[in-house]
């Protein structure tokens, strides 16, 4: 990719978020992790117990 194309693409991408945007992203990350943990645990605990075949 030539530098001019790269510069053009980057011109359409925000360099900074406002504070509120960053807080929202942080909140979203926390939710993804907590939901993923809860959902993963639910699936894990419903999975068959140890003796099984690979």
């Amino acid at each position, binding site marked *: 990719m030539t530098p001019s194309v790269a510069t053009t693409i980057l011109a359409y991408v925000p360099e900074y978020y406002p504070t509120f945007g960053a807080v929202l992203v942080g909140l979203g990350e926390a939710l993804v992790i907590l939901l993923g943990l809860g959902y*993963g645990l639910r699936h894990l605990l419903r999975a068959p117990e140890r003796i*099984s075949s690979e």
Partner: protein
Amino acid sequence: MSAEARRHCDQPLPSWVYAVVFLVTLAGSIKTLDVSPILWIDTVFEFDRVEGCLREGACTTRGPRASFEGIYHMVGWLHFWVFLEWLGLDQNGTHVLIQVANSLKIVLVMLVANRVGGGSAGALAPFFAFATGASPGALYDSSLMPFLGAVILVQLVAAAGQRPSSSLVVLAALGSAVVAEFHLAGVLTLVSVIWVVLLHPPDRVRRAKIGVTAFAVAVLVISPNGVISNLIEMPFRVFTLMAGLADGVAPSPAHQLVPFSTRLWRSLAYLFFLVPWALCRLAPSRFGSLHPGLKGALAVSVPLALVFSIGVLLGVFPAYGGYHHYWEHAYPAYAVVCAVPLTALGYALFASLPLALVVSIGALLGVFPLYRGEHDYLVNTLVRAVPLAALGYGLLARFRARFTVPSFLLRPMKPWMIPLSLSLVAAWSPPSPSTPNLHRANVEGLADLLHDDWRWDWTAVTRELRVSYKAILLDYLSTMIPDWQQEEGGIDPLRPHEPLVVIEVDRQRVPDPLPSGWIAVSRGVRFTLLAIPTGSSLDWGSLMTCFVNVRGQETCHGSSNHHNLLRFMDKSVAAEIRSVTRRVPWHGKPGETEKIFLPRRLLLCRGRIESGPPGTRIAEDGQIAYVSEPGDIVFKWTPRTQGCEQWLYWKEDDPFVVAGDPATVDVIRGLIDQGRP
């Protein structure tokens, strides 16, 4: 081992064991890492961006540079930190929150190992999960990675055990995007997600595409500028790197290419933790079959191990040390991959007591000394645990088989007790900070003392403080009181300027009562910050620093910014330095003798007292000198020699030197030498 005995060993752990391990882990963590983070250079520049976001609304979507030139990362961590600050958590609060999360990580690792390997594996897994390549006690992008890795592990083990729903695939992919946005190394968790999704037909490729799409959307939302910049930059960087390696050029001045045989051996060491798993796979009839969920743990740990192994082989990663913090999110999975097969091997191999003894003693005597390298966390923990746990299993199994014991005595004896004891010992004494950095809460007390109580101006602070890692301390002080450097000098201080040694001492070792003149600046949970006027006559305000480069050219600096000379020096210029000399005038009175001590244990780059005025007595190791005649004291550092690695010596800008009346220096020396590493 009989099927009945095997079932006995596979009994799941009772719930109270999880609670005990969590509480012991948290208590051990607080005991070791305090309720306040240590001063850390990464914290300074990361929090600077968090502050910029909160105060000026300029929240980066590109992030700071990663360890690799031209690549950016960590935006997700910065946004998360902004979120925590917005909620009202300060750095101390965030540090405690992370310790709670990382203690929970240990419980998650136990739970996963218990599900796929039985109770004994669950009890053993935490022993391996305390491994770290990051900086314990520091607050930065790597701090929360172990917990995030444990969350991914839970999801992928569940998904590997049975075909996951699409919603779990999407959540795991989103989670991997968060891990990748906390630290660049987390990008490999996308490979882990794809790996696990591809295990379960039908529609494998379509479901993998769903995961990749979810990941791509998430990273573009979190750090659009960083993702685009990296995608543009990556091909060029990879090409440059490979072209350089083909020409035998090390990828950075931080490490040199070592012989291929060394790289081969070191690269294999990264795969060593897979040996127990491979043995179980090769002989399932002897060792028992492994739970399919274990593939989830392999999916998280193996891609990183392969990248490091190949990277070391090619010379992209240094053969010794460096980049081990990239492992943080994979350690929980690594712990499960170690513990589950080891337990199976333990059952089978060590049911015979003589065999257990021979192998254990052999392992302790023969293998362990090979892996004493400072950074070989992967190998060290494994080699320590194998003989101990195996011996434990063997002894217990033999005991139960040989002796008739009343059932009321036998019932409390569970096979997981021995591995659990190993894990509890590890939980109570987790890795501590490898360098004796001060703690933030104590430094807040120091800022209040110097600025508010004594009214010292910034020039006096930079001149008079003698402390290890001074540049970092000054960064923190200037952040805590932002206008300090701009305030006018010449204000009459409420306490006269004088040389002040600042050290942190374990609370239990603080002299009681404090010697006359000593000040207990702040008392933390574990450490007390002491400010000690030493009455030194070394004139640090007249310090002259000289560098000699590889061509023998000497450059000298007499400015007042000695604490930032090396730090802000052009990297290519710094890489050529072959000696650093610091010349400090001593203005003692006739008949007065001053003792000078260069604390070796606190220095990453060890220097020596090279010379002094006539009559100066210097110890053979160059760490201690007695001076009694006015003149210049010369300190010298020789980078790129043992004990003074090139990429560490910038931390010795404005070095930590303890000088003053001999009795006081001796007391300080005793506190330093008996203290932390």
